[in-house]
């Protein structure tokens, strides 16, 4: 290495230093702390709040024996599958596909409508849906005006209710991602296929989908990670209840840490949540055989 390039390296290190330090303090530090706390019996109140002890893998053993943890994992997977993978991803793609090459005004109007759900803050979305699904909410008012029985939606179908709300809130993101990548599919290939007599469905499956495979994976990962972390929406709509019926892992973690006062156990759950996110991402990348 010559002097000039060494000077450049030094200079770039110097300029990168502030961001490294910030990352270390606000990102790496908390992660390491989480890792450490998850092996302790740190509590919010009681003697362990003052003097925590290292408990090894106790938190994790407790977790895997805890029936509520198993319930939460099931609920998380259901929530993820229904609201993210099926709901947002498929609906988002469908919207983008149907809007492809349509007239600009039409695209713009539909786009604004869908994106309105996305730009609305999560807590507002939650309140809108509570107002809509509530005992005396809009939906029941509509049912009543048709002479139908009212349903306590948030108590009879709690998981479906939060899934629908999450789909409404998040679909725009998938739609935007797919819109961008669908525009990149070369028109010439499509036209060539059409001349060869391929049907619309064949073009979609054989040409468009393989071309946008990369975006599907990226979007799947982003949507999965986003959905795994959804807390506000569920907590404000149902509080994780009734009972445990919408208690996904973030809610379970919050309950253990801040309702049951077991901070150590709570952080252990958050670590598992992180692992699930990593595993899911790796799985997508592997199964679709793409490079990111």
């Amino acid at each position, binding site marked *: 290495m010559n002097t000039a390039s060494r000077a450049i390296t030094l200079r770039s290190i110097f300029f990168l230093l502030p961001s490294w330090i910030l990352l270390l303090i606000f990102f790496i530090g908390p992660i390491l702390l989480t890792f450490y706390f998850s092996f302790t019996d740190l509590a919010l109140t*009681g003697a362990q*709040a*003052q003097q925590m002890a290292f408990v090894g893998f106790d938190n994790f053993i407790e977790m895997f024996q805890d029936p509520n943890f198993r319930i939460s994992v099931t609920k998380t997977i259901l929530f993820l599958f229904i609201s993210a993978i099926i709901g947002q991803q498929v609906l988002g793609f469908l919207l983008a596909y149907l809007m492809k090459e349509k007239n600009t005004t039409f695209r713009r109007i539909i786009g604004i409508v869908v994106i309105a759900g996305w730009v609305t803050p999560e807590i507002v979305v939650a309140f809108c849906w509570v107002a809509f699904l509530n*005992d005396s909410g809009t939906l029941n008012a509509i049912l009543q005006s048709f002479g139908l029985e009212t349903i306590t939606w948030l*108590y009879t179908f709690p998981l479906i209710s939060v899934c629908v709300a999450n789909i409404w809130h998040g679909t725009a993101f998938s739609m935007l991602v797919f819109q961008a990548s669908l525009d990149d599919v070369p028109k010439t290939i499509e036209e060539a296929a059409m001349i060869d007599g391929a049907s619309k469905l064949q073009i979609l499956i054989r040409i468009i989908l393989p071309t946008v495979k990369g975006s599907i994976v990226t979007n799947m990962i982003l949507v999965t990670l986003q959905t795994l972390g959804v807390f506000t929406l569920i907590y404000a709509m149902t*509080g994780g*209840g*009734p009972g445990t019926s919408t208690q996904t892992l973030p809610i379970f973690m919050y309950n253990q840490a801040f309702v*049951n*006062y077991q901070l150590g156990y709570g952080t252990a759950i958050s670590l598992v949540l992180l692992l699930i996110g990593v595993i899911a991402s790796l799985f997508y990348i592997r199964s679709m055989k793409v490079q990111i």
Partner: protein
Amino acid sequence: MDRNIGKKVLLAGLLILLILFTAACSNSDSDAGSTDKENDPKKAKNNELTITFRSGGSTNQGLINWLNDMVIPKFNEENPEVNVQLSPLEVSEGDYFAKVALLLQSEDTAPDIVTEDTFMVNSDASAGYLEALDDRIESWDGWDKVTDTVKKGVIAEDGNIYGVPYNTDTRGLWYNKELLADAGVSVPWEPKNWDDIINAAKAVKETFGDDVVPMWMNSGKATGEATSMQTFEMLLYGTDDPLYDYEEEKWIVKSDGLVDAFKFIDTIYEEGLGPNLSQVLNGQGSSIAYQQLMPEGKLAIGLDGMWQTGNWHENGSAPWPEFEDKLGFAAMPTQDGNDPGTTSMSGGWALSIPAKSDNKDLAWEFIKMASTPEMNLELQLNDRNISPYKEVAENPKYQELPFFEEATSFLENTNFRPAVDKYPNVSTVIQSLVEQVVTDAISPEEAAEQYKVQVTEIVGADKIMEK
């Protein structure tokens, strides 16, 4: 070339903006300090006293009135320079304790006085959040006036005193005389066992159908400690199996009583004798029941505390002049009428000083002023709870309050929550299991099974026993 100049101008502009912003931010701090000294926490700390308690949904309206109308004016007479600030937490009962624990962890956020439910005193004290008051109490003549049983609630396992109680309570069955009479239940109602309660509720359901909620018990996680104490423990302590065995110093994690208590709750909801889940699992459940349904004549029986009368008097949150004639307050019977025939639970609240308060001496002066029999009488006239002072209990003004005779008589067979570390954690297990039973996620037997597993996990295998 032109584009480069444009970029430079833009960069310079951004830099200037950045500098202006940072300057503005830092300025606001120092300016506030020099121009408005009273707002600077460091300089004004000895003149400001903050009090934290739970509010929201008209909770603690009686306490707020009392502080604003009585205690603070009197305190300001002697300490005119002190600015007493109420800093209420508008949260559900379930969230209050976690919020308080977080507040008390830092000097920047800790108030100077905090209201503590006595069941949290032990655990907040062992966490180091509260200031031991022993030395201060020694040189104070007010402490002897407090009833001895109530004092136990504020003494932690280390033997120190961490708060001055301002109320205690009992629980029983509120019932609407007219509704029960119309349903063919004889009034005054004196249920002798759990079956009597269920039968009365069934009679109400048969008579009024969906127009009246036959029986209300707090049943959700959101209502927090109210679910554990007003519902589950009121039932459990009517069986022969309490939560904790003081002789063995162990938690009873398996007993017939546990299964039966869960079964009773399950029966109420299975038979459609309870309210809608959307009402009862709500954090504001108690307000819905006692500020709306009961005054509207839409609730027949409610298992709850005597403080609910605080809602209905003329300064309450839901004034209801006829409540004295319309309602009755029956003692909660034991399961089969087994000895002593009735049961109740008592808790209470205390004023404590956080260990990280920056104004402890003044806080103690305030607590002393608020903790006299005269002041406490005023509180109970507003808040309608049982006074921890013998003198107040003998006062005719207090004795004449509606339902105080009944409520005080329940003290005879009352029980206290286990005053041991980990009770708060066990309590949250109870809340979550009750909600799961109510929503049919698990059966009463499964709930009892899970209670054993989860409580063992919390207290340790060496501190449990089966019966």
